[in-house]
């Protein structure tokens, strides 16, 4: 009989109207790396929240070493040795690494912190697992990869031996991902057990021993990774076959639509410039991808390009027209469409209805208003047309409050609106973030279709596969500069990673830009 360290048996959790977990069983062996795979909304987060004590299951039980346990809150989970690295780190930026690690379990004597002891322990752990973390560095000064290691150290410091990683690779470079995998293997050798939540199949194939697949709240089964393939896993996850390659013809670029010259944007968080003298062009009929690791100036650049922030210096022209100082509305009128990075913060008014959101870029146009009064009938018929054309699904059609819609359909709303609007340039920032495989496939097709219609597309993405598959030309951004221009047809993910991490840069291009 095999020994399981944690068993979640027949877990059922219902939210009003939704069966988030339906009779799911997950058994974690001691010393194994167990992947939990599923699309968005498949119930992964709910299941882990139950294990971490954030939710209580309606039925089913959790066993630790064969004994039933009750986990009422994260403190219970912690005392049972369960630790979690959240997708979004929970660190105090202005504290040091050490201070963050001991936060909540500070060793103290008579009210005074005893840091020396803690420091030694952190150094010991860091060395043992090859984490190479400097305990005295400030969190805000270290890279995202390092911050993740601080989160890992937090678990180790608390002597957890069941470690949950919630989509840990989303923010890392390929090299950092490699190192993380190695660290995880090290934990497994030490006898620690790892639950690894992801929807990236390559990583599962690389590191996991077994994999449990969730689909629409149900367990599709647990398989041994060495007996399965990527294709089989993806079919289990999505419920149908998925093409990984985006089908597209070669691009035939026309004239330059967007021309960016020596754009510099000051940073809000530090004294240096976030974007440093960036120059490039995007031509009609091509998809140019601005690749890079999160936080290398892409967000600031897009804010400057779309008019949300002012430029420090430099100029931008769209279709030959200088829009450096143009308002957002005028940029939009000049032919810029923008799929924003954060769809909830920028892209949608969540408490507005679907039809109200459909016209948010156009409500002022003559067709949608007369003398300041909105023409409801025009809004309705226009949004019905887009809903049909882009297959946006919702509860009450045009009257649905957007907040109640699924993430994929919210994103489709934005995409429909921005693509249908008269435009020459489409700026798409992480258009597939947080979406499942099916929705990603759809959005990629739309981007390619926009390109084939002769528009210029600027895609800003952190996803390497997306960068490689969708774009016609790749510009790599590192620390606010464009450090290389790559052809997706002839480059490799590894090479791209070297550029993204700053290990390599294209000096020829640099001279050209200067």
């Amino acid at each position, binding site marked *: 009989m095999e020994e399981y360290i944690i068993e979640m048996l027949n877990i059922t959790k219902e939210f009003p109207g939704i069966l*988030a977990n339906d009779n799911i069983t997950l058994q974690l062996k001691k010393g194994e790396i167990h992947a939990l795979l599923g699309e968005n909304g498949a119930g992964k987060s*709910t299941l882990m929240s139950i294990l971490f004590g954030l939710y209580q299951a309606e039925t089913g039980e959790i066993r630790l070493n064969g004994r039933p346990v009750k986990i009422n809150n994260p403190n219970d989970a912690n005392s049972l040795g369960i630790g979690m690295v959240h997708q979004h780190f929970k660190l105090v*930026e202005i504290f040091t690494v050490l201070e963050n690690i001991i936060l909540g379990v500070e060793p103290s004597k008579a009210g005074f912190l005893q840091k020396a002891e803690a420091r030694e322990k952190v150094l010991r752990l860091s060395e043992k697992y090859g984490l190479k973390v400097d305990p005295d560095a400030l969190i805000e000064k270290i890279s995202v990869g390092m911050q993740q290691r601080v989160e890992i150290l937090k678990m180790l410091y608390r002597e957890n031996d069941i470690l949950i990683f919630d989509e840990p690779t989303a923010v890392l470079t390929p090299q950092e991902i490699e190192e993380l995998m190695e660290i995880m293997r090290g934990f497994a050798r030490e006898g620690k057990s790892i639950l690894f939540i992801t929807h990236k199949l390559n990583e599962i194939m690389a590191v996991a021993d077994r994999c449990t697949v969730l689909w629409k709240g149900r367990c599709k089964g647990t398989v041994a990774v060495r007996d399965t393939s990527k294709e089989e896993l993806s079919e289990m996850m999505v419920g149908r076959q998925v093409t990984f390659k985006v089908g597209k013809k070669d691009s035939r670029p026309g004239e330059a639509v967007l021309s960016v010259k020596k754009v510099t944007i000051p940073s809000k968080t530090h004294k240096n410039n976030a974007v440093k003298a960036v120059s490039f062009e995007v031509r009609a009929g091509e998809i140019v991808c601005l690749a890079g690791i999160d936080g290398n100036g892409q967000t600031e650049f897009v804010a400057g390009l779309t008019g949300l922030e002012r430029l420090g210096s430099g100029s931008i022209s769209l279709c030959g027209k200088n829009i450096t100082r143009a308002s957002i509305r005028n940029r939009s009128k000049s032919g810029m469409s923008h799929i924003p990075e954060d769809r909830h913060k*920028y892209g949608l*008014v969540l408490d507005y209805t679907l039809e109200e959101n459909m016209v948010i870029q156009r409500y002022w146009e003559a067709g949608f208003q007369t003398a*300041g009064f909105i023409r409801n009938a025009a809004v309705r018929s226009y949004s019905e047309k887009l809903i049909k054309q882009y297959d946006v699904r919702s509860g009450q059609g045009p009257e649905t409050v957007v907040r109640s819609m699924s993430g994929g359909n919210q994103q489709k709303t934005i995409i429909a609106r921005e693509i249908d609007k008269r435009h020459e340039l489409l700026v798409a920032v992480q258009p597939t973030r947080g979406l499942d495989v099916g929705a990603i496939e759809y959005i990629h097709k739309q981007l390619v279709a926009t390109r084939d219609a002769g528009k210029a597309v600027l895609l800003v993405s952190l996803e390497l596969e997306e960068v490689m598959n969708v774009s016609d030309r790749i510009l790599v951004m590192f620390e606010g500069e464009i450090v290389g221009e790559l052809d997706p047809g002839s480059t490799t993910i590894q090479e791209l990673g070297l550029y993204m991490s700053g290990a390599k840069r294209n000096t020829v291009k640099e001279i050209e830009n200067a």
Partner: protein
Amino acid sequence: MRNNTVSSTGKFDFKRLSGNKGFSAFTAALLAIFLGLIFGFAVMVTASPENSLAGFQMVLLGGFRRIGDVLYFATPILMTGLAVGFAFKMGLFNIGASGQYTMGMFFALYAGFMWDLPASFHWGVCVLAGMAGGMLWGFIPGIFKALLNVNEVITSIMFNYIGMYLVDMLVQSNSAMYISSKTRTAYLPGSAQLPSLGIENSSLNISFIIGLAVALVLYVVLDKTTFGYELKATGHNKYAAAYAGMNGKRNIILTMVIAGGMAGLGGAFAILAPSTIEGSSMTYEPINIIAANGFNGIAVALLGNSSPIGIIFSALFISHIQRGGTLASLYGFKPEIIDVVIAVIIYFSAFAMLMNSAVGRFFKGRGRGPAQVEPAAAEGTAGLNKAGPVDEKKEV
């Protein structure tokens, strides 16, 4: 989700009705009022058990004996309610309705005393002057907010005081307006007083009708125009509004100006009301007190869920309770107790917002379809973010 709505259209569709925002706001307001009344009654029982039933009956029903007065007193709080509610739709908390109200009152007084105009439109000019005064007092916090991003709550609170002291000073130093022996303003000329609606023993006047009309206009502006669309979008999500190219600065200033104008109208309506005694008028006593009607406007706006139509009803309700409360003193209740009871009822109306979402959730929870899995996942991560031992740590 889709199937769900399709299948339920046959019968009486309660889910659809309850999904409606207006409906849940209405039920929430009723619940708030009901709770408020219970607590109000409890206070009366504590104060004077033997008279509590009769007194409470008076609070509840007394207003019906004085319909004219109820409508008359409803008018200023209707206007300040609109001043708060309209700004709230944009996401601005206009706590400065009192100052705007006072300025409006002063401007109206000034036009009434200092400008000699024909009776046919003198009062109209006074009303417009009052509106202009309120607009000015809304404009200043608006411009601070728009251009310098100074919190409008702070500026408008300060402008409550600035407005009140300024008005008291200006009134006292103006010999045409102020009679120092009475420490009050003089009687306004008849031409400056609003035309009465002719209800006996009541000051009910044309301002009630103007107020209703203004509320309807605001409703149309909010619901049917591009300006209202921009304003509400900004209130819901200012980032999305900026992303869509809306001119946030202009809209903030415009909203505060309109809101100030509403409160200014309220002040003008209050001071320009005709007196029931021939040859007299309403007067103002400059004794350094911030106008209560400004703050009552906050309660009115909350209870009315910031909707102009809702605000009409909540102003009427609060005025009704206040009139009834005054009549309850016939049963020996001290005016202070009555004030407490009214305050308790109004206080509970502040919970209306809370209950609004609670009621909405209660019904929506039942109406939700099985295909809508996403919110659960979202809830999951939201839950994770605020959890346990990692509580105090900031997200990176």
